[in-house]
């Protein structure tokens, strides 16, 4: 018996995949929110050593989220 590797996900499989992606995305967004509050507090307190590392980390989180969004569009295209 052979299986087609390119067979699109079923409806329930897609829902499971998107739930996993959403959970990961939420973790990244909460991390970004924490980074923003922590670095804003440090910046207002005159400690600017964390400003650029925090900006880089937040940009990495955004890139990961954009990657997930691209995969989401890919899922939608594979279905249609």
């Amino acid at each position: 018996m052979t299986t087609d590797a390119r067979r699109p996900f079923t409806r329930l499989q897609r829902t499971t995949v998107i739930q996993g992606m959403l959970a990961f995305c939420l973790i990244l967004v909460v991390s970004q929110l924490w980074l923003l509050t922590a670095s804003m507090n440090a910046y207002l307190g005159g400690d600017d050593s964390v400003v650029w590392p925090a900006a880089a980390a937040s940009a990495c989180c955004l890139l990961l989220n954009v990657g997930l969004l691209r995969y989401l569009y890919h899922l939608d295209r594979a279905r249609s």
Partner: protein
Amino acid sequence: MTDPTPVRPVQEPDEITIAPDWRPMRLQPAWRNDFPVDGPQEQYVERREFMKFMVLTSLALAVGQIWIAVENVWRHARGQPEVRPVATLDQVPPGGVLTFAYPGPHDDCILIRPRDHALVAYSQKCTHLSCPVQPRVEEDVIRCPCHEGLFDLRSGRPIAGPPRRALPVVRVEIRGNQIVATGVEVRTL
């Protein structure tokens, strides 16, 4: 002789409509058959749209973070404010308080002269939500009336209430009879 049972075509799982409450379609009200909303598909679309919104939120947070970094560059580019006299010693007797603007005309500061301590000067903006703080020399505290925040008068550090950061210190020197402001120092604690 023909078979009495009708042959029904086999349906793929994705072609079967599942009602949003997951009960079989035969138990659904009649209108549901006319307007069949597919439960799993609806769930998928809801999560997809929520995820798009979360990515937009992520973009907003990243932009905010970069804005802090850019502000930091501007702060370094501005450098320390100019050294300039803000008052004379006669204007601040022991136990007295004077307000002045430094470094800009809208940066209100307070100059305090406790009876047994040298001059101290702080920004008047509370580090919680920027309300103007009020010194109480007799109690050795600086109070924020908006949310009952208290700062230590001699160090400017928060001692009660919602503020978590110390008041920015305005460095002052006495030159003859003049009180001269030489810079501002922001502090985390």
